[in-house]
């Protein structure tokens, strides 16, 4: 059966089995992946998969089953199972599916990978690293091409078809000079094509150069309260607390510190955060949400004001809040006015935080963790790479104590972030 027929069959069978409402997502995917392992390109993977996700509501009770088989017998078993699961659950009037929307088809990226080009780009990257950065040990580097076709249907008549093809590149490495070793570092990007050499992508060049400097480090000499410049590579670690705190789990359980903060100032007014899953700006976005709506772009924090929680249909129904027009992710932070180098020059005493190894922030935003692959800044100059240095603070306070936001940003394909300096962070 083709995907549309499978989706139709699933919805019909669920209806026959007694489902009040149902939805079904059917996807076929193929991934090609070239792997560098411990410095050598030595593994080529091809994986095929299918996925059928079935969700039903019976008497306001819900259940979800996922399988990766498309034969009739497996689907019939899955239908039986999901009905049993839903009937075993508890009624909740917040359970629902998306309403009727016009049928739409979406398409993005190549249909087939260019394997020779994938090999050539990875080979070229490894050659560059070996030639120009001989002390780098490339533990892993992966280039992949993922292509998928999917159909989403629900019993309200929604039908979306999607085809996507996307390249990805990621790496992980350390520098080793004699017996001295740097912390590991790495980055990942998504791309629609292989036009740009990997070394020019994301933060690859900067991180490789820094790793070489970081084989010899020292701790900061004293505990102080200063300004940290958070790079685009680790800004997501801090933003994740805010976006997690405005999502279903925290809002429903009432443990979010932002639950009553809609349309209020929650960060410095220079800070603006968007989720742009369908923007041309974001390569690796998405077209439809998990609960069956076409995704739209949104501004989550506009000049410091929280404009929306990231509630799903269920979360919105459960809390009386507004459903978000997307499922989060595809984040873009607006650029500031100063180049990052000028921001660093303005800092009297602080840290350039390139990677953060932190404990999960407590529910009120308190955090602490180790500054990795990072540098001590004094009198506007980067002094030396650091180790055994902890930073601590409170994330909601941090975003209200922004020093500056850089005009330069890094585009990782799945997010676009600037450098941001935060004042009043404890360094020890």
């Amino acid at each position: 059966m083709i995907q549309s027929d499978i989706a139709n069959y699933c919805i019909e069978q669920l209806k026959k089995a007694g489902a009040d409402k149902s939805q079904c997502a059917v996807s076929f995917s193929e991934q090609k992946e070239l792997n560098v392992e411990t410095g050598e390109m030595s593994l080529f993977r091809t994986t095929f998969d299918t996925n059928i996700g079935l969700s039903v509501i019976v008497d306001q009770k819900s259940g979800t089953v996922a399988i990766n088989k498309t034969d009739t017998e497996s689907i019939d078993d899955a239908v039986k199972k999901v009905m049993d699961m839903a009937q075993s659950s508890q009624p909740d009037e917040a359970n629902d599916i998306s309403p009727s929307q016009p049928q739409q088809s979406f398409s993005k990226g190549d249909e087939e990978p260019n394997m020779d080009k994938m090999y050539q780009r990875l080979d070229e990257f490894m050659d560059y690293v070996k030639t120009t950065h001989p002390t780098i040990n490339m533990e892993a580097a992966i280039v992949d091409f993922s292509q998928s076709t999917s159909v989403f249907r629900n019993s309200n008549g929604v039908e979306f078809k999607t085809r996507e093809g996307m390249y990805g590149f990621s790496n992980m490495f350390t520098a080793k000079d004699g017996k001295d070793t740097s912390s590991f570092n790495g980055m990942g990007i998504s791309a629609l094509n292989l036009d740009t050499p990997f070394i020019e992508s994301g933060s690859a060049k900067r991180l490789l150069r820094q790793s070489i400097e970081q084989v010899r480090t020292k701790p900061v000499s004293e505990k102080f309260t200063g300004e940290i410049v958070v790079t685009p590579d680790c800004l997501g670690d801090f933003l994740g607390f805010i976006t997690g705190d405005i999502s279903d789990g925290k809002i429903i359980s009432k443990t979010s510190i932002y639950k009553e903060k809609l349309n209020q100032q929650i960060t410095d007014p220079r800070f603006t955060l968007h989720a742009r899953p369908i923007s041309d700006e974001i390569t690796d976005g998405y077209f439809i949400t998990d609960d069956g709506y076409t995704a739209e772009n949104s501004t989550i924090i506009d000049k410091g004001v929280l404009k929306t929680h990231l509630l799903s249909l269920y979360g919105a129904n459960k809390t009386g809040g507004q459903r978000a027009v997307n499922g989060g992710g595809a984040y873009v932070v607006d650029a500031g006015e100063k180049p990052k180098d000028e921001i660093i020059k303005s800092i009297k005493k602080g840290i350039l935080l390139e990677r953060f190894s932190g404990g999960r922030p407590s529910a009120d935003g308190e955090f602490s963790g180790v500054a990795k692959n990072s540098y001590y800044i004094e009198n506007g100059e980067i002094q030396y790479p650091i180790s055994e240095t902890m930073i601590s603070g409170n994330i909601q306070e941090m975003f209200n104590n922004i020093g500056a936001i850089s005009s330069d940003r890094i585009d990782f394909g799945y997010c676009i972030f600037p450098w941001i300096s935060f004042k009043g962070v404890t360094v020890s």
Partner: protein
Amino acid sequence: MNIPHDISQYNHHFKDYTELRVQENRVARISLTNGDVTGNVSSAQSGVSARVFKDGNWGFSSAPEFDDASVGRVVKSSTENVQFMNLKDTSRCGLILPDMMAEYEMDFSTKKPRENQKYWVDFAREVDGYIEKKFPELLSRNVVVAGTDMEKSLSTSDGSKSYSLTPRSFLVVTVAIEKDGNPVNLYELFGGLGQMEDNLLKPSDYFPKLDELVGRLKQKADGIFPKAGEQNVILDADLAGILAHEAIGHTTEADLVLGGSVAGDLMGQEVVSPLITLIDYANTFEGETCPVPVYVDDEGTPSKDTVIIKDGVLKSFMHNKESAQHFETQPDGNARAYAFSDEPLIRMRNTAFVPGTSSLEDMIASIDDGYYLTKSSNGQADSTSEFMFGIAMGYEIKNGKIGRAIKETTISGIAFDVLKTVDMISKEMSWSAGGMCGKKQWIPVGMGGPAIKCKVNIGGR
């Protein structure tokens, strides 16, 4: 999907060195938030994969269907992939992997009748109902009942054959309370190896433990900020296990050693206190089955314990066949894959410090001013062995006695340095069975240990 116990009938498709694996991962999860069912999910992902090795390169392929034709297709696709690599690079031509032979079957599925979905929803509701009734002052309650079965069958061109069904199941309870307008939360995980029917017997079994959990939450809500900086601490088993796994274990995985980890230059040297012996157990500790038992790995190598550190001296790295060949040693069965579509990677199994001779009480009594850290929230480590662990629960120690609870914090240090400061190790052993380790793929791991006394850096303002 029916996973045959023996798939060697498909070996006729092999031409070169080949590993063939048929696998199904089944996951079931019921989540309650403040009494509402917010998750009621089941999934089964299965299929067949083949990995082919020739002239120093690997080809891998997987597909969700499993029959003779599908096996033929994945072996062909893997072979074409390795041929593509061999055409591009001949520099490792002639490389041969060590021959390993094993034949084993192990099935940890329950022998009891399987309960239906309603039973487990009601189980979770009874747990939740108890907390709601007894502790109405709580801000929120989250109860999760979850189980994962990994069932796999392997056949290799070396002649290895294995079948295993390794389930894990858990009850996870998270409670939160409001303190000064801010939420404070704490979780506890119960369960481990085995299906739900064997692990989660009666909701009432957990009531005393839930009382203790809420008691600890209230202590934590009233907790003090720990003093930042280097402190004397006792890391209870949960923390010692994560230290063994994250901070030392990863640096001794041979692929990370080849990637430049600090342990690469330390073989045969005294790297930590001579009180310390660190072992990655394959499947059994003192006659008891470990949380994540592995008898044959996914390359067909029979599993045995890897003694990483013996009396303070670094003795071994963990290997797959290829790294063992590189280091001219034998693999111990550490090559493991998570899903049917994943290739085996060098992974830990059940990593733990070997218990010592001290009692926990004597260890606490030996500290005038320090901390007893009992529960982690997360952990990360580095090629340098520098680590960071979130501390979800802990207490101050004053004049040899447990004092007030502390607020959440983190600890950090260079593991090889921190473990030089260990001067007492408890005789009690405790395993943590809920671990998932991320390294390209996620994989279940066991961690554990006794309590250890050492000096670490505590974060805080």
